[in-house]
């Protein structure tokens, strides 16, 4: 069961990483809940329609992570979403491997969604033009996290995703991206990022 990313999910991940270039960042990936469970569900890709940026800097402290997971879970239920994945961009440019934090969160997500994926951002290839996808997707096989080859098939529409992400990075939209940390600093900051979502829609 491969996951696929929409333009909105992809660009918000990259905007989050771009906003805090000196920090590690992480967040959750959500998909729409499907009603039918097909027997052949393994071939049906899961479309990540959105992501929720969580933290920047220290990713490994438990209490706020627990709060975020519970809160976002509730929000998902209201919007008929389900948390299907976790993304992380490490602090160092050349390090794109999932660490213990990533594995722990993904394990937690797997309790609710058996085929949760980890998406790591490859910082070393982050550019404004976004000419190639810079994520690594990890699936859980036989107790290990293995990376899968990333092609344009991993996107609902790579051309659109590339165009939108590049435009928003250039326009410095990441300055307005809100993550859960920003929300805890000021509750009025909305981690669903309606403003950025609208910009994405406008560029579609």
């Amino acid at each position, binding site marked *: 069961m491969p996951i696929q990313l929409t333009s909105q999910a992809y660009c918000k991940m990259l905007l989050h990483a771009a906003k805090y270039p000196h920090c590690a960042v992480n967040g959750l990936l959500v998909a729409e809940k499907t009603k039918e469970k097909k027997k052949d569900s393994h071939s049906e890709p899961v479309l990540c329609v959105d992501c929720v940026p969580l933290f920047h800097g220290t990713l490994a402290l438990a209490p*706020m992570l627990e709060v975020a997971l*519970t809160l976002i879970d509730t929000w998902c239920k209201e919007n008929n979403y389900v948390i299907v994945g976790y993304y992380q961009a490490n602090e160092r440019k050349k390090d794109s491997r999932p660490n213990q934090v990533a594995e722990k969160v993904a394990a937690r997500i797997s309790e609710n969604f058996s085929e949760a994926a980890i998406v790591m951002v490859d910082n070393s290839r982050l550019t404004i033009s976004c000419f190639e996808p810079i994520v690594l997707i990890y699936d859980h096989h036989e107790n290990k996290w293995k990376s899968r080859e990333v092609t344009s098939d991993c996107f609902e529409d790579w051309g659109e995703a590339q165009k939108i992400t590049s435009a928003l990075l250039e326009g410095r939209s990441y300055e307005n991206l809100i993550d859960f940390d920003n929300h805890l600093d*000021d509750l009025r900051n909305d981690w669903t990022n309606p403003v950025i979502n609208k910009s994405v829609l406008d560029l579609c």
Partner: protein
Amino acid sequence: MKAVVDIDYNWPYGLTSLSTEMRDKLRKWREDNYRNSEQIVDVGEELISEHSSKLGDDIWIIYEQVMIAALDCSRDDLALTCLQELRKQFPDSHRVKRLSGMRLEALERYDEANKHYDAILQDDPTNTAARKRKISILKAQGKSAEAIRELNEYLEHYGKAAFCLEELMMTNPHNHLYCEQYAEVKYTQGGLENLELSRKYFAQALRLNNRNMRALFGLYMSASHISASPKVSAKVKKDNMKYAAWAATQINRAYKMAGRGTKENKCSMKAVEEMLESMQITMS
């Protein structure tokens, strides 16, 4: 007839006040240790190129601030300009030498950077800034084990992370952030004793700043977990349920206040209410 000497402080229109505004911005970012490098470069570059004559002695610290921000933004041209001015003015300075080293780090010329820092340390073995840069280089190269070893040596006086925060709290008893971070570390370490400690420190952080949302959530989470633990007495369970209930009310109130007048926050608020309700159910 009065002789009126009219000094127009706004002439040339806007220029004087603009440079003061920019100066103040840079100072605020310096004092609050912000790493908003793109903005610092934007403001600083203009200030240096257009208004340097108005800056007086501030110009040196501004050069330093802008230089570091320029490194963050891969603006080596700007970084070098600032560095050269600082070198001219302070030819034998360790502080400027450290900046040269940082530029080399940004260019990934780690061996040369290390030579700079070693030179500083030979001259002044107590120079902690140079020591910290050397550790940063190890970290950047992915040599975590070595970095940790060096860091532990450097922190010999303080011990481990929690102890370090304890020192910070002792010397900064009014700082609610250290208190709250310590609480988070304790919570993460886990176990009933740490959980109870974390609850106490979240509560203390709230006493110091009753609007610290992390402390409020932390109090709620820790008290809820304690009351749900099978190892606690009935009294402890009851007390913690009271703390959790109090925290929940405060959280709801905070969200209501934040949501006033905005449609978007209604969703957040509802999610919080539901979260608190669902946790009550699982905790009881």
